[in-house]
């Protein structure tokens, strides 16, 4: 089976999105091998470099508007609950433009998977700061450096009662693949923030390579323990940032939104 399309890939040579594409393809093969029909998989994206991924996958796909892929995916799931929804979106879309949808999808435990290609900059518009850019980020809109502190999206999703919270690293595609498989299999709202260096506008490769480590996953049902691990790194970019854990931070099972809403008696 071929997952490629005829579309020309327009990512920069060496872009870390290739790592995510590799991990996602392997995930899809693995899901199909386990019996999930290919036609039931839908990739939902928005606007931005990472979102171009749907053109490179020979799968059902829905290109939404900037910031709206989560709520689009929720609508698709309500329209046909048998479908497997995987959202591929950027930090600009999910944490800036569409942050309300992230919070509400987590709150209602919608049975979809959200993968955030978090390069911590608006890359396709040539490098402005996003909600996860570090304070002091220098871009064309903030030549003297952003004055805003970044948000920690994992903390936000935890506070919103998301039921599967993880972080991956685009340059560790094998680890990422395992994370995505677990996320897709999780019944309920699964969220993976993927650190994704942008080699053109915000190259964080060596910063991450020095700090990223695969954490031991334990006490996954404890919000308190999850918070402790989530707070090991606050998305700032200074020398105080020592370690960046990747892996699953939190995982609990709760009834999904769609099962409850579409309940037929």
């Amino acid at each position, binding site marked *: 089976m071929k997952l490629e399309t005829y579309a020309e890939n327009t990512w920069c040579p060496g872009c870390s999105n290739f790592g995510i594409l590799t991990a996602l393809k392997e995930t899809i093969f693995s899901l199909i091998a386990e019996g999930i029909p290919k036609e039931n998989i839908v990739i939902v994206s928005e606007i931005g470099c990472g979102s171009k991924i749907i053109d490179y996958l020979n799968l059902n796909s829905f290109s939404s508007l900037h910031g*709206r892929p989560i709520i689009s995916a929720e609508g698709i799931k*309500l329209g046909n609950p048998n479908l497997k929804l995987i959202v591929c979106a950027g930090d600009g879309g999910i944490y800036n433009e569409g942050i309300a949808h992230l919070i509400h999808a987590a709150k209602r435990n919608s049975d979809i998977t959200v993968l955030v290609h978090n390069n911590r900059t608006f890359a396709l518009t040539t490098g402005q700061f996003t909600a996860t850019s570090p304070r002091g980020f220098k871009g064309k809109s903030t030549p003297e450096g952003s004055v805003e502190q970044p948000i920690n999206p994992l903390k936000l999703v935890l506070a919103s009662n998301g039921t599967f919270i993880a972080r991956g690293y685009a340059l560790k595609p094998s680890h990422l693949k395992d994370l995505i498989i677990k996320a897709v299999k999780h019944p309920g709202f699964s969220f993976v923030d993927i650190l994704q260096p942008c080699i053109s506008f915000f190259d964080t490769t060596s910063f991450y390579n020095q700090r990223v480590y695969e954490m031991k996953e334990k006490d996954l049902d404890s919000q308190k323990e999850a918070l402790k691990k989530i707070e090991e790194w606050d998305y700032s970019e200074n020398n105080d940032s020592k370690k960046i854990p990747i892996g699953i931070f939190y995982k609990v099972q709760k009834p999904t939104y769609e099962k409850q809403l579409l309940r037929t008696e």
Partner: protein
Amino acid sequence: MKKDFSILIGGAAGMGSRKAGLVIAKLFSGLGYRIFIYDDYQSLIRGGHNFSQIRASNEKVLSHRKKIDFLLALDELTIKKHQADLDKEGIIIYNSDKISIKDKKTVGIAVETIVKKAGGIPIMGNTAFVAGFAKIIGIDWKALKKLLKKEFKKSQELNLKVARKAFDNAKSLIKIKKIDQLPLPLLTGNEALSLGAVKAGLDFYTAYPMTPATGILHYLSGHKKEFNIAVAQLENEVGIVNAAIGAAYAGAKTMVGTSGGGFALMTEGFSLAAQSEIPLVVVESQRAAPATGVPTYTGQGDLLFALTAGHGDILRFVIAPGDAEEACFWSGKILNLSWQYQTPSILLIDKEISESTFSFDNNILNEIKDGKPLFWNKEGKYFRYKKTKSGISPLAFPGEKNVICKSNSYEHDEFGITVEDEESVEEMQNKRLRKFQEMRKEVEKLKAVNVYGKKTAKKAIIAWGSTKGPAKEVAEKLGVKMIQPVILEPFPEKQMKQALKGVEKIVLIETNSSAQLGKLLNCYGIKADKEILKYNARPFLPEEIEEKL
């Protein structure tokens, strides 16, 4: 004896004037009268002044009128505000335990005393009031009891006891005659349009609460099992429209409802539906705007907005029904049209249609079909945006075997892959334009323009949406022509020109300040000789139109 009654019941919010008014309307309806109820309420929960104005007539009526035959006052403010409109034969009926008045043709009902004597609780005051009024207008006890039993499932015995006491205490002043026609159910426009959409195969309704469209959300939520549909309230209107488009992509016939402010937020999604060719029906129930405006009152200020909403060159249907039955028929029709042409569309109504109550003839439902759009024939490879002669690409949905369904908000090729080259971009827009030509043809096949009154008259009133009601009534009374364009986009140019044949003078009537339909008509070379515009957030009354004509 005349057979056209106007009853106004008013009180502070929380006193239950709306419910009491509805019960009174049902008394008349049970006697074969045709009903229209205008509900006037403020954006508050307690206090202020709310009233329902009921019209009961032997003929179909679509608006209330200024003159009042029975003024029912639950408080003193109601008398102060409305007694100037009392007909010279009119009667004021009031709660004599709370108000004292002299010098008028008045009848007091000692509401609290009756309730106390019957062993009831204060909330049963309206039962006493309604029962007293029923006796005054000569309704017999049997009919009243039957209705009250239906209306009060809780504390039924006690309510009946209170009603009997009030009934026995009052004196009949007149005898309302029975009309020899079958009673019709009473429905709000919101309920009627919900039924139409369900009949046309609605699968999913999603909305964020916003007056005056909220009634649709409440009605469909309350009946979702019976109708076998899903209903969801989501985080905001941006979410609503995008979820609706997602659901339709997955194959669910979906509708959303809101007012102007909510629709303003939905416009990005409206544009997405057009570009990705996904059916989307938006019920836009106008209220008096701009911005928050006068939120619980009416207006027709969103027509030009509906015609142009969304960025980019967009195809759409805009349909403006003029009463509950039309709202029912056209909500079903627009759902089918939206799916047939895979295009966004707007059912444009207003508070006057949404929340007013009408005698509703169920037969209209027989004219609505659960339409089948153009489906893929399952041969060869599936192309979501296949370039066809009609511009309509066959539909398939994710989850179907051998289908890869790629929907795209970017410009795209036939398969759904993003494109930017000039040739592809122009070709895809041409495909959508071919679809628009088909939509134009379709509109001329439908009854897109209604004509009422004296068909040969040289003078014509043009009115749209809820203004149809009072305009039609006046046209029929004065012997002029009345023209109501129902489909406003694509504009039914041929039918409109046909309707205007022989007309020498055009009077345009709208509840907005800039004659928005007038501007649309100008695009087709039609110019009004006179404009009658009203923009105080209240609907037109027949008397006002008659005077200004």
